Structures are given as C-alpha cells and as structure tokens.
C-alpha cells in the first residue's frame, strides 16, 4: 500500500471513532469502570461511617431522613441545603425508615434486634420501641397510620403492630427473607419483597415471593410467586395504584458459570405487577454486553410517568418510562411475557436513561413535585440531589462522617463493585447480598461442567473457618477471593493486591447476626439441652459406643462448629468427583438453607432423615423423632 492510501485509512479510522463518540446518546452513561479516589484511614485507626441504607423525605419536602446503619443513627438533614439538623441514635443497626402518613413520626427497623423504633421528629428522639420479629428489614405504615408493618428478614414473616398500643397483634407468613415494603395510596395494599428463593426441588430455578397484604385489613391478600427470580429488594407502587414494581435478580445458576464470559450469569431487572388484572411480568434492565447489577432502590415519580431504579454494584440509576413499559406488556402475549425476563435487548424499549451515581446508590427519595431526586451513595457517605428535568447533579450532601475508610470498609465497597467483572455483570455481593448469601447452588467451571455442584455459603463469621471451598482446596480467603474469583467468577484480572487485602479484611470482619434461638446470655432451653446431649453423646440409644467420628461434636466442635478438616460423610452425589468435603461451620446455620455441599436439603432434618442412611454423617438412625427435633433445636443455637 502506498503512503497516501495508508494515511487516508488512518484518517478514516479516526473519523469513524470520533463519529461513534458523538453517537452516544446524551446522558446515557455506562457504570463507572474507573476506580474512584479513596481516602484511607491510618492503619489501626477507626473510621465512623454512615453507609446510608435508606432515605425518607418528609411530606413538606423540608427534611430528609438518612438511615446510617454503621453509625447506628438516623440523620435529619435540611432537604434543601443538606445541613445536618439532628443526629438520632437508634438501636443496634437501623436499616430502614418509614414516615407516619400524617404525624411527625417515623419508624425505623433495627436489623440486629427484634425491635422497631418510633422517632419523634419534633424532639428528634426515639419515643417508643416495639417488639417485632427476627431482624426487621423494612417498615411501612398503613394509610391511616394505625398499623405498622415490619418485614422480618429472619423469621420469614411480617409483624403487624398496632401503633396505638405498640403491640404486635399478629404475624403474617411472607416469603423467604422478607425485605422491603411499599404501600398503595389507592387502596392501602402493601407489597413485600423477599430476598431468597422458597424451597424448590434440587436443580430447579429459584422462586421468590412478592407478598401482597390488605394494608387496611391487616390480612394477607395474595402471594405472587416470581419464577426464576431472587433477591427481591426495593419495591414501589405507582401513584394511581395500578402498577407495582420490585427490583429483582434473575440468576442463571443452573448453567455453568462459564456463562459469565458469555454475559449470562446474573441478569437484573424488575418484577412488574398489574394490580388491576393481577398479571405479573419480569423485565430486565440489563443491556447486551452491559449489565445493571444488583438493582436495589425503586421509586415512582409523582406523576407516575417514570420509575427510578438504582444499581447497587453498577453505580448508576436507570430511568424507566412507565407508559412505554405498560405498552410493551399490554402487547405481550403469555409467551412473550415469559421471554421478556430473558430478553437483554428489551430494555431499550422502556429504559430511557442510565446516569451515573455515587458508589453503590442504595436508596432513593423523590420530592413531591418530582423535581428533586435524592440518591444515597452508600460507600461515599453522600446524598446526591439530581435535577430530574436535566438528569444532572444539582447538589451533593456530605453526611459528615469520617471521609477516610478503614481497610474493611474499603473492602466492603470493593465487594459491592461490579467493575471487576466482565461487562460489569456482577459483584461479589451479587451472590452474597446483605453480607450473607443467595441460597443457590452453582456449577463452577474448574470442577468440570455439570460436576461438583456447590451450595453457596454465607460469609458471616468466616474469619477462622478456613480452608475454603467445599473441597477445602483454598487455604485462605486471599486464595478464595483472589485469582480463583478473578478467573472463574469475575472473568477479569480481578483485584489488585491491596484491593484483595481490603476484601479479605472485610470478609474477616463480617459478624454473625444475633441468634434468636439462643439470645446472648440466655440458658439453653430444655429441648436445646437434650439436643446438646445428643450432639455430644458417646453411646447410642441401645448403649452401643459411638466412635469419635460418628459424634456430631467430633467434626463440628466449638463455637464455630467446625474442626476445619475434610471428611467423607457419605453425601457424595452422582455429579461429584469426590465425596470428601471440608467440614462447614455452623454459624447462623438456621439462616443458610439449603444444606449439604450441593444444597440438596432444604431443611436440617433432611440431612439425616433422607441423606444419612448408613450413619456416616453421624450416628443418627437410632434417634426417635423427638430426639431429632431436639438435636435440630440445639443446632439452631449456633
């Protein structure tokens, strides 16, 4: 080729690239791929942070409540200037807030307890506390302000609290891990999302429940079973009450994780309920080659024309055009409706914008006129105020906590960042939401496709429980979260060494949650005492000696419930290459169904009633039903 054509080709290439840049629609930005600057605290120094989890804007638009779980406070800010008006200490771990519909009061769910707290917004103090279920996660009142509904994440129910007396009048069974609530202003209906799948048969798609309550009547109205969905989080009801949307994840855990590279591991979107017809659809917010990981907070504009949705791991906010979404769903027959949950290209029909937010936008609040959208940025301790007409940042409120982060705090932020994954498809927290797990079984590539299916495990209190991985081959968390994660989960180069160190610091810092079956300091109940005796017994019911390896306490000793060794306990399945597995710890075991290495058992009982025919997983076949129940009661105390 002569020099002139070569120059022309170069010029042409430059022109093409420049043209492509001009074609990017204004305002539609992908999630940040570049790391944000982080200020690190001095080694060993503490850093008090907020890590905002929820927002509420008072009806007059004057005050913004910000829930700070890490600081154990609720901030009251001037909604116009961001000035701090009050800082209210609230409980052990405030995590969600709801305003009283008519009076200057707010209600805060306290996740590390079994209580909710009422805030007096005149005195800016906690005025009352009410008993609720285990680990309250979300709150909302009824329309009249007479009843408070509390989603209890770990007792799988909703507390119904009469606000005049503060008494818990009843509980309504909800899904698995109830999380967030929203109320319809049209008829008072309350919708409750759930984080985890209901029990399903082995190797079947997950099913999560969207519970519908008669909010005025304190009763269940319906249960929508969302097939293929999990991690139900933020939920909102349109102002006219006709539509309910809930953030969901549609995991593809039944296919091998090689599909991360193909862009088909975690897909993310919304469940959409037509409240007039009861029709339920699932739509995606992802795009081909660019995902919307961990949809989190959801809010309708006051005119019902838009839905704003945050991506916790993608650091962005999507704007959904409700009219276009409704039109798409109305035109869809049942087959198309089913396909929409898998259609990565469909979002172009109804997502009009995706704009960048701060690190991990966790909550939204909208002014009554819809002009100002408040976005809480969890790992920046800021609230961004967005001019919704321009979709531009109008202001940023600094919440006033330590600007520096400790290593674990930084690690937590990295754990929730999808930029480390191929096409921004997922973050570590996508499979371990809420500092826990997603309750699913996965097929990891390094073990061979279709082989060695593994149950996802909680990250609570894993610090001293190595080695890791069900086959025990990862001796440390660095190995677990480092190259292995990069190669087989994230499909990228993974974390830098300092980032990996921070992620490990975070993992080592995740505590267990308070155990409702044995509150701290409480003695064992009679059933738990009997169960403990069985756990430690050395002879069976006929007086025959039980060899050490047949005793529960042999492999599962101590407060963590593991001796950190590997054994073959007869649980090998046809898809397993080996039957030797690392002994899992038992911390918060009641919260981490399903069980066994491949998640075959959705209950503790089944471990021994169905999968221990030869007494290789402890000598248990001589136990009566009562004895097995007692053993289970003891196990639940871990």
């Amino acid at each position, binding site marked *: 080729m002569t020099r002139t054509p070569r120059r022309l080709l170069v010029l042409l290439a430059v022109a093409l690239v420049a043209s492509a840049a001009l074609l990017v629609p204004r305002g539609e930005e992908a999630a940040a791929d570049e790391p944000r600057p982080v200020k690190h605290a001095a080694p060993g120094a503490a850093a008090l942070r907020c890590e905002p989890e929820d927002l509420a804007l008072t009806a007059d638009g004057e005050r913004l409540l910000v829930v700070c779980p890490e600081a154990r406070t609720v901030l009251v800010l001037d909604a116009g200037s961001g000035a701090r008006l009050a800082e209210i200490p609230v409980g052990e771990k405030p995590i969600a807030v709801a305003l009283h519909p008519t009076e200057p009061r707010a209600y805060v769910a306290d996740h590390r307890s079994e209580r909710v707290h009422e805030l007096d917004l005149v005195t800016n103090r906690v005025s009352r506390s009410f008993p609720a279920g285990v680990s309250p996660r979300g709150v909302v009142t009824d329309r009249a302000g007479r009843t408070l509904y509390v989603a209890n994440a770990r007792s799988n129910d909703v507390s119904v609290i009469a606000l005049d007396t503060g008494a818990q009048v009843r509980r309504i069974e909800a899904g698995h891990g109830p999380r967030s609530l929203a109320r319809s202003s049209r008829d008072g209906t309350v919708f409750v999302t759930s984080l985890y799948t209901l029990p399903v048969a082995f190797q079947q798609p997950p099913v999560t429940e969207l519970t519908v309550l008669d909010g005025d009547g304190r009763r269940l109205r319906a249960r929508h079973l969302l097939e293929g969905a999990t991690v139900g989080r933020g939920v909102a009801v349109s102002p006219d009450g006709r539509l309910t949307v809930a953030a969901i994840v549609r995991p593809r855990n039944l296919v091998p994780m090689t599909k991360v590279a193909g862009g088909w591991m975690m897909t993310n979107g919304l469940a959409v309920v037509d409240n007039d017809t009861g029709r339920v659809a699932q739509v995606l917010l992802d795009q081909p080659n660019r995902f919307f990981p961990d949809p989190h907070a959801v809010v309708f504009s006051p005119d019902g024309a838009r839905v704003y949705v945050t991506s916790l791991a993608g650091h962005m906010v999507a704007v959904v055009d409700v009219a276009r979404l409704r039109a798409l769903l109305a035109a869809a027959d049942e087959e198309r409706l089913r396909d929409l949950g898998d259609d990565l290209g469909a979002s172009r029909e109804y997502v009009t914008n995706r704009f960048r937010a701060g690190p991990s936008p966790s909550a939204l609040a909208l002014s009554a006129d819809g002009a100002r959208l408040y976005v809480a940025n969890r790992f920046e301790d800021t609230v961004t105020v967005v001019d919704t007409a321009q979709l531009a940042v109008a202001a940023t409120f600094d919440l006033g906590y330590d600007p520096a982060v400790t290593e674990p705090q930084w690690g937590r932020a990295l754990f929730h960042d999808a930029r480390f994954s191929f096409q921004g498809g997922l973050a570590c927290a996508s499979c371990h939401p809420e500092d826990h797990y997603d309750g699913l079984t996965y097929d990891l590539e390094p073990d061979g496709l279709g082989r060695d299916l593994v149950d996802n495990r909680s990250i609570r209190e894993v610090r001293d429980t190595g080695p890791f991985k069900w086959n025990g081959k990862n001796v440390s968390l660095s190995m677990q979260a480092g190259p292995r994660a990069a190669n087989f989960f994230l499909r990228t180069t993974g974390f830098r060494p300092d980032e990996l160190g921070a992620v490990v610091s975070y993992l080592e810092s995740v505590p267990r949650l308070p155990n409702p079956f044995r509150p701290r300091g409480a003695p064992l109940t009679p059933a738990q005492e009997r169960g403990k005796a069985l756990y430690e017994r050395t002879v069976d019911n006929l007086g025959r000696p039980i060899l050490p390896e047949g005793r529960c306490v042999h492999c599962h000793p101590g407060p963590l419930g593991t001796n950190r060794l590997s054994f073959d306990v007869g649980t090998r399945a046809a898809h397993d290459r080996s039957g030797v597995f690392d002994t899992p710890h038992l911390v918060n075991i009641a919260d981490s169904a399903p069980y066994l290495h491949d998640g075959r058992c959705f209950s503790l009982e089944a471990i021994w009633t*169905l999968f221990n025919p030869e007494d290789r997983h402890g000598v248990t076949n001589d136990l009566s039903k009562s004895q097995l129940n007692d053993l289970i009661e003891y196990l639940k105390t871990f």
Partner: protein
Amino acid sequence: MNILSTLLAGLIAATGLAGAGGLTAPPGAPPEPAAAPTAPPTGETPAVPDVPLFGEWRTLTTADGLPGDKILYVRAAEDAVWVGTEHGLARLEGDRVVRVVGPEDGLGHRVVLGIAPDDDGGVWVATAGGLSHVSGERVDNYDQFVSGLPNDVVFGVAYCGRDVWAATTSGLGRYDTWKDSWLVYDEKNAPMHEIWGYFVTCAHPRYVYAAVWGGGVLEYDPERDHWKDYTDPDGEMEIDLFRNDGLIHAITTSVDWSEGILWAATYFGLSTYDGRDWRGYMDHDSGLAGNFVNHARAVGNAAWLSTDRGLSWFDRKTWVTYTRKDDGAGRIRIGFGPTATFVETKTAIAHDFVFAVDQRGDDLWVATGKGLSHGRRIDARAATR
C-alpha cells in the same frame, strides 16, 4: 372382649339390671334397636319443637368439579368452604368449585383428613402424607423427613394463631410458626396411653384438646405446660359399666368445645363434659343416630354429630337426626323413642355415612361417603311429608 367383662356382663344380665340406664345389652346379643320411629296419624300436622332444622339439600360430587365423591372433611371459612376428599382438596365459593389442590400442586397426599382455616384465607391441611399449608398460590408441605412433624399420617389439624397442632399416628406435633420449631408430644412427655392422634382443637380459649384413638381426651394448658387426660373409667371393657362416670370410651375420634361444653365423639357413643359432670349418650337410649361417631362439631350450645347411620344435632335437650330414605327423600327425626316427631323432606343428605359437618349461619355442609351435601335452614312447618 376380655373374660372379666364377659363374666361381669353375664352377672349383670342374670340380676336383671341389663337395660337399666347406663348399661348395654349382654355381650353377644345384638344391640337393642333404637326405638322405631312412629309417624303421627295421617292428616294431622305434627307438633314440631322449636329447633333449627335444615333441608333443601343440594349434593355436590365429581360431576360438579369436586376431586372425589368420598368427602372426608369439610370446613367453612369466612368466605369459602374447604372440602377434603380422598382425591384432594377443593375450595368452594357458594356451591361452585373454584380451586382444586392435589399432590401435583404440592399437597402432601391426595387423602385429606382434616382442615383448619388460618387468618388469611388459607388453610392448614391434614393429609395422609404430611401437614400442608395452602396460602394463596403457595402450597407448602411439612412431612416427617423435612420437618419436625412426628408422622406423615396426619388425621387432624388445629390452627391456633402462632401454633399449629397436628394429630398424627405417632403423637401430637406442635409447630411454632414464629420460630419454625416443632415439639412432639407422645407417651414420653404426655399422658398418652396410645399415641395415635385423631383430632385436635383449640376452640377453648385456654386449653388445647386432643382426641386420641385408644387414649381418650387430652387437655393441654399451654400457660402451665400441663397435660390432663380423660379416659374411660371402665378401662379396656367394651361395655359402658356406669353411664355418666366419665368419658364413654377411650377410642375418641374428635373433640370440640363451645359455650362451656366439651363434646367428645367416640366409636362407642358420645360424651359431653361441662367441667364437672360427664354425660354419655348411645344410640339405643338417646337420639344419637349411631354409636360410631366420626366427628363432633360444636356450634353455640349444641353440636352436630356425624355417625355411620346419619347426622344428629343435640343441644343437650333435644335430638334431631337426619337420614336418607331409600327413595332419596330425607327424614328428620326430632326427639327419640315413642315421642319422636318426624319431618319428611324432598331432599336429603347424600348418604347416611357422615364423616364431618360444618355450619356457618344458616348453611350446613355435610361430608358423606357419596358427596358433599349443602343444606339450608328451613321452616319445618313448610316442609312437606
């Protein structure tokens, strides 16, 4: 029947005490038939006592969408009627079957033996394959392998708010729904002479009552964690030696409580208990349709007794018994013996073998071996002969 009871019965017969109130006929002899009903002279309008009567029966079967014709249980909830059959569970609105639930939907077993509505429009279901909870679209099953349920064969269930009780063939299970925890009560921790639970109810504001096959009636006080048993003072004897000395028989099938009266159904008669005195009733000396009482359902100050020979109603003063004639018409007998009066109705319950019954206001549903009969309160004077 053991030797002692044979000898004793013979002695009683020899002394001429047989036939006195409280004693049965000698062993081996056929039971004395219930007093033959007498119809008033033709043309005269019978004087009908002022008791609620039901008629205008309509029977539903598989032709109407029920999953089976043998109806083992029925419960009327606030806005629906739930029907347990040998082939699944059905939900009715009016006389219309609106939903059928079977094992393919997650129900523990096709044989439905008991139903207890919850507070949210759903039901807990006792099946031959576990305890199921039908709530909205969800059907969850608790069986002995995946939960703390004592045994998969569940004969009865009671919904008590936070607790759900299951009467199983291996004892009683108590499920704390708030804590997802189970307790099992059997001979080791309750006065269960037999552990075959047949029925359980929390109709009493404080106590839980259970009927145990061969074990009598058990009363449990949750506040004190205390059990009390009521058994047949005649022990293992198959005769009722002294009437009104206690529970009439230990093979109890069902218990219910209302307005201070405990009703205990047994396979050998009926007992009532007012907290102090027991009264026993059998078919040969009362208006009870038959001694084989499958089920007792208390409503107000009265109870419906489902027997193998018809359906009886009793308010501890007046007996009313419903049977079906061979021509398909119905007969209502009010009272018993020579003073009984009769009302003939054009329609009847589907069959005299009655498994269970429930009433809601002026509607009555009767579970029979040949379908579910739905009757309405009628004006006896308007009924035709």
